[in-house]
């Protein structure tokens, strides 16, 4: 395989930020909160760039759907080694309702337009925790899927994927074109170096709208409210192991 890889990169609230629920329970406070690239998307970019460095593919295209600021996320991907970016601009109400189904439609349309041979996505985003976009993009394209990948090897016109499953690992071989979603152990993403950040500024980001791709953004999911989870109360400190065992026995836990 010597083609083009599309990688989806999502802008999310930084993993280290403690999120806050809006007082009116309509969602999460995002204004003035640090955002970064979804960590699983970083792994996806790293994998694509590695394939390019091994000369197994020709071009890595980073795609992000969202408002103007999504371009920063694309810049990060470019600094990590992606060749160019595509920003699919989604704003306002459309952005609030943007979910995995709509993003999958955008990714599938782009895959056709760009004649991609492989799409690599993170297995889930750390904001909505949906874990759907890769599977749905594969479905819409009728491509096979290698989800939760911890090892990816290109073998001729097929991809061998080692997958993280509940009891251990599983190996599958899928035809290309295909969709792969990255799990945590696939690789360790690189840090963008200053020279690469500078170089990334010269790389091109194309801008388009979902309508340019013929994608309808209608969503039939409605978030009624967002709540704080019930808080667990801290219990007691025990002084010794014997104390602990006694307390657990008293509670009938052991």
């Amino acid at each position, binding site marked *: 395989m010597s083609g083009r890889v599309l990688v989806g990169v999502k802008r999310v609230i930084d993993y280290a930020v403690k999120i806050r629920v809006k007082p009116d329970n309509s969602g999460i406070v995002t204004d003035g909160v640090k955002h970064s690239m979804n960590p699983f998307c970083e792994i996806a970019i790293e994998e694509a760039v590695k394939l390019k460095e091994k000369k197994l593919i020709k071009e890595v295209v980073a795609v992000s759907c969202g408002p103007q600021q999504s371009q920063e996320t694309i810049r990060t991907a470019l600094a990590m080694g992606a060749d160019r970016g595509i920003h699919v601009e989604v704003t306002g109400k459309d952005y609030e309702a943007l979910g995995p189904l709509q993003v999958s439609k955008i990714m599938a349309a782009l895959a056709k337009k760009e004649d991609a041979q492989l799409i690599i996505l993170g297995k889930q985003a750390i904001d909505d925790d949906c874990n759907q976009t890769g599977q749905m993009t594969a*479905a819409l394209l009728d491509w096979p899927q290698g989800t939760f990948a911890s090892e990816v090897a290109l073998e001729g016109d097929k991809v061998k994927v080692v997958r*993280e499953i509940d009891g251990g690992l*599983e190996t599958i071989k899928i035809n290309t074109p295909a969709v792969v979603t990255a799990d*945590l152990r696939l690789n360790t993403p690189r840090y963008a170096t200053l020279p690469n950040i500078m170089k990334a500024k010269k790389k091109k980001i194309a801008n388009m709208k979902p309508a340019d791709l013929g994608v309808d953004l209608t969503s039939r999911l409605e978030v009624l409210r967002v709540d704080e989870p019930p808080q*667990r109360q801290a219990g007691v400190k025990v002084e010794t192991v014997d104390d602990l065992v006694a307390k657990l026995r008293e509670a009938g*836990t052991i």
Partner: protein
Amino acid sequence: QSTLVVAEHNNEKLTPITLNAITAASKLGGDVSCLVAGTDCAKVVEQISKVKGVKKVLVAQHASFKGSLPEELTPLILETQKQFSFTHICAGASAFGKNLLPRVAAKLDVAPVSDIIEIKSPDTFVRTIYAGNALSTVKCNEAIKIFTVRGTSFEAAPTEGGSAASEEVAASSPAGVSEWLEQNLTKSDRPELTSAKVVVSGGRGLKSGENFKLLYDLADKLNAAVGASRAAVDAGYVPNDMQVGQTGKIVAPELYIAVGISGAIQHLAGMKDSKTIVAINKDPEAPIFQVADFGLVADLFKAVPEMTAALNK
């Protein structure tokens, strides 16, 4: 109103999370059917037809269902849906269900709802977002509702008392775009992590993979499963299938013992629904103590062997 539960199994045994999904399906009201697709799954059909609440078992057997590849199962589910017009399709939120159901949903142009923890009404579900730091109540206005079920949030359906009829559904012709090669399951005599009554987990504080032996010894005394934090997995101490947390497994045992785990929010998301939480950590400021029912500030290398010994008494 009628619900299809896609059963997860290995042709010999039903995977326990399917029982939790059946409970969720029963809560919706209406008939519950289960689809068992496999290569030679008569035993599973027999098990599932006895599960309380299951009205009908749909069976599809074909060599192409080996390894439960989503490329092969999706056309089958679509065919089944065409025949029976279910209002809801669900499965457990395991690696199997998460892999399969979104693919089915996209084919039906439906937005699925992942990993639900509560059913408010047949179209309204509660799920966690931001690693369990917020709860989102979602109304699904799709004609067909497709969702995966968090196993720890619904009781397992009783495995006795049902008498479902079984019915063959025609296997679709193989898609042939993917091939299942092998599975390497971690072998363990201990209980399975997500269904164990007691879980002992280790974090970076264990300092090495060898030191996990301390936890295995303690776990064996308690008939417990052993888990780990992402930090311990990232450090290479233990394999990823032991990971408890938002990106690993969600557990809710009767007793959870966190050893040398600081308590990153990501880890808490995977275990904070445990009934009783014990934390052993030498850092009194570790966030894990904020959720622990019993906290012991101590050097784990002393405390854990002591605890193992104390359990002998």
